[in-house]
């Protein structure tokens, strides 16, 4: 990025190139300046909105900083505190891992299932696609509130149906510490549309000949799914897994809206109730928000952010490493 010079116009060491007059140097400078100009929004953004804040937050993570006073260097104390004496950090960490471990695979399975359903009909599939996709666009805060109501243990329709079919003690959903995360998982499944569209494109991309070949060899439906569809979908599954894990660690809005709605607290003491019921919806990003922007422990919040960053990177790298065994790129693939 440092040396932005034009390499294209001068790179022609062929015989006939000699006949063409070399472009004057002024043209090269102009080309380079055009590149610089075009790239400038991103260069400025990268320096001031990403690189500087990253370095700065790494520095903050080794300090005690409350915004009112200057940052005070305390070495690794934030990190030591986090790992050894902060039960809330571990709770937030466990909750986040749980929702990723449960939510991401379920979303992929459900996404493939709904996409497969959409490949079935000869007519009308557009209408179905519209209906299936629509919820994924719903404003997360509004969707979360709607789900809190739909899954209300006393008068919500879901538990009424459950009671109607004879379930004795239907879950408390968002109001119970053991079931609140399931509510969020179901909310995620409701908004499966974006993943579904990607899987649908993947399914429609599978060459027909592969299925025909499988038919000739006498494969049944399950075998065709296992040995044709799944390998052909594997790049898309891989992509969805990586994105799901990255976004899973950043889950905020739905959990924030749902936990405030169920805590029934007033705005003033909302801080104490984030993650309710009983801390079951205290996710990593919620905890970071609480520490950094409600209690103004900016140093500690920065340390949390860097741990989050490192965990995300490790998870992504593990998925990428593991993927070599199961992701199949047609035609050799890249890398």
């Amino acid at each position, binding site marked *: 990025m*440092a040396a932005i010079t*034009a390499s294209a116009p001068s790179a022609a060491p062929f015989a006939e190139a000699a006949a063409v007059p070399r472009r004057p140097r002024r043209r090269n400078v102009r*080309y380079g300046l055009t590149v610089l100009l075009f790239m400038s929004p991103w260069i400025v953004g990268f320096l001031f909105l990403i690189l500087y804040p990253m370095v700065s937050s790494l520095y903050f993570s080794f300090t005690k900083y409350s915004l009112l006073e200057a940052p005070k260097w305390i070495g690794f104390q934030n990190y030591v505190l986090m790992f050894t004496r902060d039960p809330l950090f571990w709770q937030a960490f466990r909750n986040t891992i749980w929702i990723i471990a449960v939510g991401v695979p379920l979303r992929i399975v459900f996404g493939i299932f709904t996409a497969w359903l959409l490949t079935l*009909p000869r007519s009308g599939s557009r209408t179905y696609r519209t209906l299936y996709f629509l919820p994924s666009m719903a404003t997360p805060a509004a969707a979360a509130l709607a789900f809190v109501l739909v899954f209300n243990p006393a008068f919500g329709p879901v538990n009424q149906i459950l009671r109607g079919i004879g379930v004795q003690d239907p879950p408390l959903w968002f109001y119970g510490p053991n079931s609140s995360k399931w509510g969020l998982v179901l909310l995620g499944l*409701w908004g499966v549309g974006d993943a579904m569209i990607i899987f649908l494109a993947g399914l429609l991309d599978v060459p027909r000949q592969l299925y025909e070949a499988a038919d000739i060899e006498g494969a049944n439906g399950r075998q065709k799914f296992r040995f044709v569809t799944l390998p052909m979908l594997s790049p898309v599954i891989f992509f969805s897994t990586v994105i799901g894990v990255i976004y899973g660690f*950043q889950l905020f809005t739905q959990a924030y809206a749902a936990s405030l709605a169920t805590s029934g607290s007033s705005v003033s003491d909302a801080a104490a109730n984030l993650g309710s019921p009983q801390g079951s919806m205290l996710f990593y990003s919620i905890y970071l928000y609480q520490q950094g922007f409600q209690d103004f422990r900016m140093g500690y919040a920065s340390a949390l952010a860097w741990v989050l960053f490192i965990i995300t990177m490790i998870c992504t790298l593990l998925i990428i490493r593991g993927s070599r065994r199961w992701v199949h790129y047609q035609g050799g693939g890249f890398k």
Partner: protein
Amino acid sequence: MTQGIAISSAAQIERRPVPPSVHRKRFLLTIARHAGLIAVAAIFIAPLIFVVLTSLMTNEQAVTPSFWPRPFQWSNFAEVFHRIPFLRYTWNTAQIALLSTLGVVLSCVPVAYALARMRWRGRQISFIVVLSTIMLPIQVTIVPLYVIWVRLGQIGHMTPLILPSFLGDAFSIFLLRQFFLTIPEELSDAARVDGATEFQIMTRVIVPLAKPAIAAVALFNFLYNWNDLFAPLLFLGENQKLWTLSLALTEFQQRHGTEWNLTMAASLMILIPVIILFFLAQRAFVEGVTLTGVKG
């Protein structure tokens, strides 16, 4: 090949009518498929219908197991406007979403153009840096960014929500670059021969051809900003006048938490513009999402 055989044999043999048993089986299969599809569609749409019905109930009825509004209390929607300045919040949200979208399109198109269609040293490494910032959790930069905006006195203003959009967005750059790469190089070369500058090639050749991708980027950004809660909560939390709809909704729910009919009426009014936008631009949405996954 198979077609050729089919044609030659069809000339000799009259097409055999489908036997009634096969016909019936096919018909039943079609019915079964549509039944499954409709059942799943019902699950997707049911929560929205429930929101609509609850938004029309009286406050007392909203917290009972009954399902059908009795009476239909249309005044709930007007009541929301009485309780909170809903129009002002809508205007704030629209302003932020539209200006951010404008910023992203204006800043990302040239960057993507330089990355996809110009040749220069350091291009590859720049692209890798762009890609890696897509995966960067916003939390890593949010504390210092907050501090910067505090120093600049912009907390409680829209600036922190709009200005960064004019400095590029990694995901949008990536998406546009992927699309720009698919446009044949000959088109650019022809324009170059005619003496067009790179800027002219970008605005007159590439941009018109990349309309679907630009539309998708614009829609994603509009929707993201319309729906976002985290950034408005952080940067506008203190200034009620500039609240966005999402932010206002969570606060509304806090204050009028037991009045589910009003909360749902407010939720519905936030969802409706999104739904309208979706129906207007469904193709661009679906194509855009596909672009992210298949080429990613």
